[in-house]
């Protein structure tokens, strides 16, 4: 394989080594599709702490298929870190990220590459028709619908991890924590041209049935962060200020009502717990609002690199 740049880098991130047969099947199917594509490519396997046996399997595979490269972490750092590292080492203009098993029909890579060729920046996949259980589908539907609602961005399937990018997309979007799965939203938000194509669902290794309850909490929190980051990164006071205003005015309203009762009806306030609620709401409003001010200071002092816009092209009159 040449050491120079190539057309397509396929990145596969694997954090568990148990299902060697499935990984082997994926690689076999991938080889068929990639070779029939007729483009220069490499397959970058990221061992995200899957262990020595997995690395040995990949290296063995490399003997027969020299396009395979291995990037190794000693322990699991998670999808976002693994992908960042992979982008550092990938040499392709396009980067296709695939799960480590055949989640969807890989023949779709042909269509994805064609879309990238014709000016799309980012191609995601939605699993259709799906083969997993009703419960999984219901959860998945709820998750996607809730995300759509909170961010106002129309994506249908965030949990299908076969995705194809123009390299710039991954270089520009900084991911942290669990936001890896919300990449589509961040990309659309940055104004990249995004297409979602349907591909037949083949196998599912991810979520089955009900998940650990902590996971639901984490997903929920992720979406709250995302909602905030998408809409208010540059204007935190709009968010905190509005929340503070709502709390504060509710509190002032309650206190005014109490004062009204005291002054005109001479009712004692000592017996009224509502007064405590009113006072606390005022304090809460003050606190939340001033957190917004701190946010504005952070954005002003640290946010120089956060550009609101991206210049695609400058077309000069004399050129």
């Amino acid at each position, binding site marked *: 394989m040449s050491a120079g740049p190539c057309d397509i880098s396929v990145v596969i991130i694997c954090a568990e080594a148990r299902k060697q047969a499935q990984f082997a099947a994926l690689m076999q199917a991938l080889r068929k599709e990639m070779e029939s594509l007729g483009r220069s490519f490499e397959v970058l396997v990221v061992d995200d702490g899957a262990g020595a046996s997995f690395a040995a399997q990949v290296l063995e595979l490399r003997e027969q298929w020299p396009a395979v490269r291995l990037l190794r972490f000693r322990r699991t750092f998670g999808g976002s870190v693994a992908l960042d590292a992979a982008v550092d080492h990938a040499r392709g203009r396009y980067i296709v990220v695939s799960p480590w098993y055949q989640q969807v029909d890989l023949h779709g890579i042909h269509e994805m590459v064609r879309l990238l060729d014709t000016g799309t920046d980012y191609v995601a996949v939605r699993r259709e028709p799906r083969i997993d259980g009703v419960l999984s589908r219901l959860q998945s539907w709820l998750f996607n619908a809730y995300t759509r609602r909170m961010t106002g961005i129309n994506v249908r399937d965030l949990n299908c991890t076969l995705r194809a990018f123009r390299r710039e997309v991954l270089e520009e979007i900084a991911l942290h924590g669990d936001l890896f799965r919300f990449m589509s939203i961040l990309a659309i938000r*940055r*104004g*990249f041209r995004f297409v979602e194509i349907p591909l037949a669902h083949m196998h599912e290794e991810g979520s089955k049935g009900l998940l650990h309850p902590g996971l639901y909490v984490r997903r929920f929190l992720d979406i709250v962060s995302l909602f905030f980051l998408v809409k208010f990164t*540059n*204007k935190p*006071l*709009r968010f905190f*200020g*509005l929340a503070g205003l709502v709390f504060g005015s509710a509190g002032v309203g309650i206190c005014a009502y109490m004062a009204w009762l005291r002054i005109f009806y001479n009712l*004692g*306030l*000592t017996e009224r717990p509502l*007064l*405590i609620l009113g*006072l*606390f709401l*005022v*304090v809460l409003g*003050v*606190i939340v609002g*001033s957190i917004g*001010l*701190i946010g*504005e*200071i*952070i*954005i*002003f*002092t*640290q*946010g*120089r690199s*956060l*550009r*609101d*816009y*991206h*210049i*695609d*092209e*400058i*077309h*000069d*009159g*004399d050129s």
Partner: protein
Amino acid sequence: MASAPEVSLVIPIFDEEECLPTLFSTLDRFLSSFERTLEVICVDDGSRDRSLAMLYEATDTRPWLRTVKLRSNRGQTAAMAAGLEVARGEIIVFMDADLQNDPSDIPRLIAKLDEGYDLVSGWRRQRQDRAFTRKFPSWVANRIIGWFIGVRVHDYGCTLKAYRASILKPLHLYSDMHRFLPALCSGAGARITEIEVKHHPRRLGNSKYGLDRVLKVMGDLIVIKLIVAFADRPMHYFGPFSAAFLLLGGAAAGLHLLNQTRGFNEQSIVLPALAVLSLVCSLYFLFMGLLADLIVRVGRRDPHALKRGAAELIS
């Protein structure tokens, strides 16, 4: 262009296909009599209509025109910031595409700038808009902004303003700051004045503003005040809040103690509750001020960035 032009005219464009032909012919006419070298930068803010194609077409036949294409719609401030980034002139003039402003005012703005000002603001004295939904709110807003920030300009909302690039370039424009440019520039020590400009009724296309901005503008105002006056010493911004709550809490506590010693044993919780919560708020603002100081100190951004641009090397 071989050498940098003297003046950069920046026009943000969003879905203005109806206005563009008239805009170009107006600019053509204006340029034939304009005495300085000028570049016109049209920033396409992710238009969904034919605006971009029309801009490209116009750019092919006009050497003074430059089209900047943004990847997606980001709003007026971002479009202006993008235009500012690529502008090469020593004087920057902003204008709207809707032709409510008249380019023929530009020479007068620049002449005024040459009298030794850094910012010349346009003032639409004879404003041709609906009185109740546009003119009155705008009048109130300008008064409030002028009073609150301490930079009295009659017409913050008028886009047609001329700036010295050395004042404008160091500013980091984000959110909806374009409405407050005179305030931001004054923070950088700009000498500001204004002149009356013409204003035409909107004939083509639709106005993209509504009345719902009031809350946003109020919030922005608080932020601008914080940034302009207190960016390098936020404790002074939070300090007075802390002091006010301290006074309130102290007064409530004092009154309560007074009642106690006088023997009104009403057992009321009102005053003690007020005192405790006020003292909590007072401490809270004190700590917020410290936190803000911390953020400013570790900021990668030089806290004096705004003001240092005002220094002029004389010899």
